[in-house]
C-alpha cells in the first residue's frame, strides 16, 4: 500500500456521463475503503475533527472501517450527523476535514468524504437505522424548512426526546438537497429520500405544503399549536439578477428556476409534466457550485455550455472537484468575461449576450483582486439560453410576518452562531437564512448548534 497516495475513487467516464443523469462518482467498495482507512494514522489530537462543522469523530469511525466494523462506524458518524450519505457527497472536504488532515502535509489527505459516503451507503443497503430517543420530553418543537439545517436540527432534537414537526413549503422534503443539487451529484431516491426516512424514523413528523408566513405564522405555531420553540432553517431565498438590459428576455433563467425544474420537477425525464428549455448553446453566468450544477445540467440536456465568470480561474468560488468534473465533461470556461447586455430577436427570444473582457486589478474588500473592464473589448456570444447564477437575497416571508425577529442590513435573520438564538424568545435560526448562501455542512452545523440551544432553553 502506498501511504502517501489516496485510493482513487471510481467514476463514470466523462464522455459517457455527460449524456446521462446517473451519479458521477461511484464510491469505494469495502476493499477500497479498508485500504484507504489503513492510511489514517489515528492522530491523538485529530485536526480533521476540528475542521468538521458537526465534529464527527473521524478517526474513530475510520478505525472501525479499517477493522471492517462498518455498522459501528455508522453508529459513530450518526452520533454527530443525520445526513452522512449526503455529506460524503457534497461537503467541501478539501477545505474542512481533509484540509486539516496531517497525512495531507506530505502526500494526499485521507479521503474522509469518500469513506463517510461508503459507510452511509453500506448502512443504507444493509437497512440499518439510527437509534431514536428512549425517553420523551413531552415538549413540541417546530422546525421551518426541511433542508440540511432543518433536518439536522430536527434529528438532533428528536434524539433528545422532543416531539418535532418540520414544516416544508414545497411538496417534497429535502430543501436544496432536492431542488438544488442535481441527481448526478446527489441521487434523490436512493440517497436523499433514504436519509430523510432515517430522520423520520427518529420520530420527526414532516408536514409539506406549509409556507410559514403565509399558511400560518410563527406566533400562531407557538400560541395556537402548542410549540414551545421554533427553529427557522428556511434557506437562501430569492435569486439575484444582474440588472442588465434584456434580462427578462425569453430564455433567461435563474439557476434556481433551471435547477428546480430539473431536480425537483424532474423535467429531464420525458415522463415529467414540467417543461424545461432545451437550449442549444447556453451561457451560465457565475462561478460558484450552483453555476457548475446548472452548467453540467444544461450539458446533459444536450447543450454546448459556457461558464461566464468575471474573475480568473483562481477566484472561482466553486469546489475544485466540481470545476474539474465540469471541464472533463466539456464545459467551456470563459473567464475574465462579464455580460453587459442580453440580446434578443424581435419576438423577445435570446439570440446572444454582449460581454466585455476583464482584467484583475487591486484586491477588493473580499481580498480577491477586483476585476476591471478592458476598454473597447466588447464582443457578442451567440446563445439561445442564459442562466444567471449570481447568488440569492433573503426571503422576507418569515421575517416580515414575525414580530420581534431582527434582521441585519442584508435582511438575513440575526442569530447567535453558538446556539442559534434570535432576538425573539423561543425562536432559533440557522443555515442560509442567517448566513446567506453557504454550504450544506455549514447549515447542518448551525442546525446542530441550534438543537443544543433549544434543548438548553427548554430545559431551564
Amino acid at each position, binding site marked *: 500500500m502506498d501511504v502517501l497516495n489516496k485510493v482513487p475513487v471510481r467514476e463514470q467516464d466523462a464522455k459517457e456521463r455527460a449524456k446521462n443523469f446517473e451519479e458521477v462518482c461511484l464510491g469505494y467498495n469495502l476493499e477500497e475503503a479498508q485500504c484507504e482507512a489503513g492510511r489514517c494514522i489515528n492522530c491523538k489530537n485529530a485536526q480533521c475533527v476540528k475542521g468538521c462543522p458537526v465534529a464527527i469523530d473521524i478517526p474513530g469511525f475510520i478505525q472501525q472501517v479499517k477493522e471492517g466494523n462498518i455498522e459501528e462506524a455508522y453508529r459513530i458518524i450518526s452520533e454527530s450527523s443525520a445526513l452522512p450519505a449526503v455529506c460524503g457527497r457534497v461537503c467541501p472536504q478539501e477545505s474542512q476535514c481533509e484540509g486539516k488532515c496531517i497525512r495531507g502535509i506530505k502526500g494526499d489527505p485521507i479521503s474522509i468524504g469518500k469513506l463517510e459516503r461508503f459507510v452511509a451507503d453500506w448502512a443504507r443497503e444493509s437497512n440499518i437505522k439510527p437509534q431514536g430517543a428512549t425517553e420523551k420530553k413531552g415538549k413540541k418543537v417546530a422546525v421551518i424548512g426541511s433542508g440540511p439545517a432543518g433536518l439536522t436540527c430536527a434529528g438532533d432534537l428528536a434524539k433528545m426526546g422532543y416531539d418535532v414537526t418540520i414544516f416544508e413549503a414545497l411538496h417534497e422534503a429535502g430543501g436544496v438537497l432536492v431542488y438544488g443539487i442535481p441527481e448526478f451529484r446527489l441521487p434523490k431516491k436512493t440517497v436523499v429520500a433514504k436519509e430523510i426516512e432515517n430522520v423520520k424514523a427518529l420520530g420527526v413528523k414532516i408536514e409539506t405544503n406549509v409556507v410559514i408566513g403565509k399558511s400560518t405564522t410563527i406566533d400562531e405555531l407557538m400560541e395556537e399549536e402548542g410549540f414551545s420553540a421554533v427553529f427557522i432553517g428556511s434557506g437562501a*431565498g430569492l435569486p439575484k439578477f444582474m440588472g442588465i438590459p434584456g434580462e*427578462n428576455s425569453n*430564455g433567461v433563467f435563474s439557476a434556481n*428556476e433551471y435547477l*428546480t425544474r430539473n431536480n425537483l420537477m424532474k423535467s429531464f425525464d420525458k415522463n415529467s409534466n414540467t417543461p424545461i428549455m432545451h437550449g442549444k448553446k447556453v451561457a451560465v453566468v457565475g462561478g460558484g457550485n450552483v453555476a457548475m450544477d446548472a452548467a453540467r445540467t444544461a450539458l446533459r440536456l444536450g447543450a454546448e455550455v459556457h461558464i461566464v465568470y468575471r474573475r480568473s480561474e483562481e477566484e472561482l468560488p466553486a469546489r475544485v472537484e466540481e470545476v474539474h468534473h465540469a471541464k472533463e465533461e466539456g464545459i467551456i470556461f470563459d473567464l475574465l468575461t462579464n455580460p453587459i447586455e442580453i440580446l434578443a430577436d424581435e*419576438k423577445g427570444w435570446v439570440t446572444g449576450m454582449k460581454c466585455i473582457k476583464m482584467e484583475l486589478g487591486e484586491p477588493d474588500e473580499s481580498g480577491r483582486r477586483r476585476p476591471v473592464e478592458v476598454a473597447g473589448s466588447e464582443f457578442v456570444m451567440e446563445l439561445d439560453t442564459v442562466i444567471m447564477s449570481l447568488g440569492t437575497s433573503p*426571503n422576507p416571508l418569515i421575517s416580515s410576518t414575525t414580530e420581534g425577529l431582527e434582521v441585519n442590513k442584508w435582511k438575513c435573520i440575526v442569530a447567535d452562531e453558538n446556539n442559534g438564538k434570535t432576538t425573539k424568545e423561543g425562536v432559533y435560526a440557522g443555515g442560509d437564512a442567517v448566513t446567506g448562501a453557504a454550504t450544506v455542512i455549514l447549515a447542518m452545523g448551525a442546525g446542530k448548534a441550534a438543537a443544543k440551544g433549544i434543548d438548553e432553553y427548554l430545559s431551564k
Partner: protein
Amino acid sequence: MYKIVKKQELTTNIYLMEVEAKRVAKSCEPGQFVIVRMDEEGERIPLTICDYNREKGTITIVFQTVGAGTKMMADLQEGDYFHDFVGPLGCASELVNEDMDSLKAKKILFVAGGVGAAPVYPQVKWLHEHGVAADVIVGSKTKDLLILEKEMEAVAGNLYVTTDDGSYGRSGMVTQTIKDLVAEGKQYDVCIAIGPMIMMKFVCLLTKELGIPTVVSLNPIMVDGTGMCGACRVTVGGKVKFACVDGPEFDGHQVNFDEAMRRQSIYKTAEGRAMLELEEGDTHHGNCGVCH
C-alpha cells in the same frame, strides 16, 4: 392529501372545485392564490382563490383546461384528492387592508374577462360582506362561456355582462362597456381588472386615458410560488418584480404587458399556442407576436 368535496363543470372546459385545505382556508384573503399538484408527477399549477369557507376549511378554485396538466385535473371527481395544495400565496388584495371608511366612499369597478371572473368574485363578495357595493363588468366570448353570473349578481352592486359576439347581455369587448358606462355618466375611483393578459392590457390603456387608477392580477409562469425561482418576474414601473411574492396584483398602468405576454409563451407547445390564440382571439395577433 386534499379532498375534492365538490366539482362542477361551469361551462365547456371551465371547472369549479371545492377542496379541503384547512390551513389555506384559515389564513387566505381575497387576491391570493394557491399552487396545486394533482399527483406525484404533476406540474405545480398556480390558481387564484375563487372562494373560501373558514368554517368548513375549504377553498374553491376555478380553472380552464389549457394544457395537459389542467386536462388531467378536470378528470378528478368529487371524493378524489389533490396530492398537493399549498397556499395562500402572494399578497392579499389592497382592498382588504384599506381603511373601511375610505373604501366605502370609493366607487369601485371590477372588470373580469373569461375565467378571470373567478378571482374577481371573492373580492366583490368581500366588499359586499363589508357593506360596499361595487360595479362589475363580466366579459365572455359567448353566452356559453359565461361563468359565475348568478353568484356575481348576488354580491355586485350593478352587474354588466357583455359578450364578444353579442349572444348575451351587452355586445362587444369589456373595454366597450367601460366606455359606455363612463359615457352614461358613471364615475369610478378605482378599477380592478382580471382576465387574459391582452384584456388587462387594453383595459389599462383605456383607464389610463380615462384617469382611473387600475389594479391588475397577473398570472405568469411560476414554479415554487414563494420567490425562489424568479420565473414570474415582470417589469412594473421599470423595476423587476416577482409576481408570486410582490404580487400578484400590480398597478396596471405601470405593467409592461408586452413583455409579460411574451414571457407567458416560453413553454407553449403547439397545442398551448393554439389555446392561447383561441383564448385571446383576434386581439392576440400582432400584439405579442410570438405565436407564429
